[in-house]
């Protein structure tokens, strides 16, 4: 096998964006018929490297060899011609086109559409049978779930006769059952001799499905190893550059008084769709309640109602006293006054103002507080002082509050938001997707801070689409599906599989294939995930 030319070989690829060196002298060999993982933290340069391979960016230096041939890839057209197909993290599909039209787009066989579509329909049926890639050719993209959308992306690549398939963070939007199905598809493709490059930051996936794995850190390729000869701990260390704790270190919770009681909460959105259909839950002081669910099933609305962004009907009590859900005390400021702090799901849109300085962001939401004001004017010196302190205590890097928020990495942006909210010493902390787009090193830090707050006797409501995070942080887990609670589990008493089924609205394993049942259930939840 060793004499065989690599399917892809990159030699000395470098790429800089301004002063930022995204890729530094990267060389990699991917053998045909293997699944090759590329793992690295956010901003390590994985996506840049793949964008160069797919003709989105032009490398400053270096060369690409496909099956031993030096190949120039100036644009996507050339990449497709070279047999490379790419499934992007954010799907590149036309929402109001059918599956068939999306597959054909750009690969039509003639000027008239009819024959092209007929030909594609035939081939699609064949591909579906070969690789378990069943899709409905006539369904509109906007009406199908993300799992099927992803299969359409794979079909698009296969229809263009791709031999090399690149998948960028493919499981970010999938439930565990769907992810397992995807891995089976990838195994099937590999068995047919296709070469697959899997980009991810999830160690579990790398261990489960890849043959070899390359680790990237800060634009450099730090190692390429056989998956069978490595371990998650070793990979994590290679990614971060130091030893990392993969599990959250915490003692059992000591729940005390009831802090949050939610009773029969209902939310109807602007389009008249019921997003919450009678949610009830409670959180005690000193415990973390984790809400698991596929994004778009009502967890965002729940956080928004409690955070004072969205009005609702039902009853919410904090420390035994009612909270205003519709009137003039239903805004964020009143919530903060009552002792509710909110780390929103989308930190870049709701947690920070990206174009403002970090020190200004530190005061947002609390800018009315006396300590930040001096008479009519804001006390800038006090805010800057406070920001500097928070930066030190939360280890924000670079340690310079005068920079604009957008100049920080995802993890450090999240630390700024966390510092602002946690240091107010709230009775209840609402925290949504605390580690989305956050690198491993910062994840460890953020998790520790949340557990510390719990141990200080505060109530925490955690919303996350990462099951691993829910399982490791929560003291109790509630599963939300289609605006309803599917039930509660204790983390020691459940696993990803069971939670995954509940996230799709099922209480027991279905008779047929699991991923199909999951998909069918999720397809008619009208969520943002799509």
């Amino acid at each position: 096998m060793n004499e065989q030319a690599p399917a892809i070989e990159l030699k000395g690829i470098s790429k800089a964006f301004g002063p930022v060196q995204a890729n530094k002298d990267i060389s990699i060999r991917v053998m045909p018929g293997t699944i090759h993982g590329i793992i690295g933290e956010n901003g390590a340069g994985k996506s840049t490297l793949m964008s160069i391979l797919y003709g989105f960016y032009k490398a400053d230096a270096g060369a690409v060899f496909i099956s031993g041939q030096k190949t120039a890839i100036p644009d996507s057209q050339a990449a497709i011609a070279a047999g490379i197909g790419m499934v992007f993290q954010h799907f590149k599909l036309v929402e109001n086109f059918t599956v068939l039209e999306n597959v054909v787009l750009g690969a039509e066989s003639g000027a008239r559409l009819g024959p092209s579509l007929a030909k594609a329909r035939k081939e699609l049926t064949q591909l579906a049978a070969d690789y378990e890639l069943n899709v409905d050719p006539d369904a509109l993209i906007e009406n199908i779930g993300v799992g099927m959308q992803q299969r359409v992306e794979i079909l698009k690549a296969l229809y263009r006769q791709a031999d090399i398939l690149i998948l960028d963070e493919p499981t970010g939007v999938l439930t565990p059952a769907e992810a397992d199905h995807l891995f089976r598809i990838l195994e099937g493709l590999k068995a047919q001799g296709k070469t697959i490059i899997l980009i991810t930051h999830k160690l579990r996936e790398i261990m489960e499905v890849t043959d070899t794995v390359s680790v990237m850190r800060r634009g450099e390729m730090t190692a390429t190893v056989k998956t069978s000869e490595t371990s998650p701990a070793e990979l994590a260390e290679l990614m971060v550059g130091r030893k990392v704790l993969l599990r959250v270190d915490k003692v059992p919770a000591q729940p005390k008084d009831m802090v949050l009681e939610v009773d029969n909460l209902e939310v109807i959105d602007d389009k008249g769709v019921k997003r919450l259909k009678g949610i009830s839950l409670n959180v005690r002081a000193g415990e973390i309640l984790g809400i698991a669910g596929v994004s778009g099933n009502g967890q965002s609305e729940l956080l928004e109602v409690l955070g004072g962004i969205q009005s609702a009907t039902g009853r919410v009590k904090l420390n035994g006293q009612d909270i205003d859900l519709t009137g003039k005390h239903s805004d964020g400021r009143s919530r903060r006054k009552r002792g509710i702090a909110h780390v929103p799901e989308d930190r870049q849109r709701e947690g920070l103002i990206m174009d403002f300085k970090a020190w200004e962001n530190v005061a947002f939401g609390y800018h009315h507080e006396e300590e930040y004001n001096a008479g009519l004017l804001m006390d800038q010196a006090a805010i800057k002082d406070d920001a500097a302190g928070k930066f030190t205590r939360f280890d924000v890097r670079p340690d310079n509050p005068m920079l604009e928020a957008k100049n920080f990495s995802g993890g450090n942006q999240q630390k700024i938001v966390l510092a602002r909210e946690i240091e107010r010493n709230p009775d209840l902390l609402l925290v949504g997707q605390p580690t989305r787009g956050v690198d491993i090193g910062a994840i460890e830090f953020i998790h520790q801070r949340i557990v510390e707050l719990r141990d200080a006797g505060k109530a925490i409501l955690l919303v996350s689409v990462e099951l691993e995070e829910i399982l490791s942080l929560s003291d109790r887990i509630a599963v939300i599906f289609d605006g309803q609670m599917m039930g509660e589990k204790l983390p020691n008493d459940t696993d990803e599989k069971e939670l995954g089924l509940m996230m799709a609205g099922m209480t027991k394993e279905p008779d047929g294939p699991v991923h199909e049942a999951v998909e069918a259930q999720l397809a008619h939840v009208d969520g943002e995930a799509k």
Partner: protein
Amino acid sequence: MDYLTLLQILDSTLRLATPLLLACLAGLFSERGGIFDIGLEGKMLAAAFFSAATAAMTGSVWLGLLAGIASSMALSGLHGLASITFRGNQLISGVAINFLASGLTVLIAQSWFQQGGRTPSLIGGGRFEEVTLPFADALRDVPVFGPFYAEVISGHTILVYVALLCVPLSWYILFRTRFGLRLRAVGENPAAVDTAGVSVIGLRFAAVGICGLLCGIAGAYLSTGLGAGFVKEMSAGRGFIALAALIFAKWRPWYALYATLLFGFLQAIALRPDVLESMLQFKIQVQLLDALPYILTVVILAGFVGKAIPPRAGGEPYVKER
């Protein structure tokens, strides 16, 4: 109202709807490709002037038509350069084109012809002749259908029939060809087109080019078919009415025909206040009638047409991203 009056109104409905229809289809191609174009008005005006001026100087209405199309497409190119190549704001570019056309046409007209910003009246070969369709006279005596055929269907300039033909043609191109599929895709999600290996810039320039072509025909029709020469601001807001019709039509060719016929009908009514008065038994201000199409535009834009979803990537310059 007798049958003949009705036929006359329908006849002028068709005449008046033609420039709206052409401009509406022009906007349809542009917006389906993701480029908003509020410069339809300006392009029509420029085309109206250059086709009248060329027709006046050469005596050939066909050369006039070509000049009109060329001027409109030149402005389209400008719009494309600003909004596609340089990723500028499409609305601002469109407004600029409207101002440019409004000022330049009068200025050049004055400089060339010294007639107060108009072109000389077009005579003979300088105008499009009315075409009498076959059997129009033979069928005239057939009850009901005969007069309808002779008065409404027959007896228009060639450009009216061209405009009507453009409707099924546009539908076919958009929904039955490879180009149409790609054009619609680029207005919805240019990233999908780009990653499929098709040039976003090329497609969008094609969309803008077709828009210029159709606007050019619309403008030429105004000064050489509907009228007999160019007068200042002769497009009279038709480009904006066409945009309203486009929303009304939900960016679909056949609906565009119906929508522009409705607007044409209102304009035709406004020209015949006597008919309305005799029907309603009271006098209506002519100004109110004149304003009817514009009032309807406002009503439509205020959302009385139900949900009209524009192409999703419309108005946004395409920037490659990871």
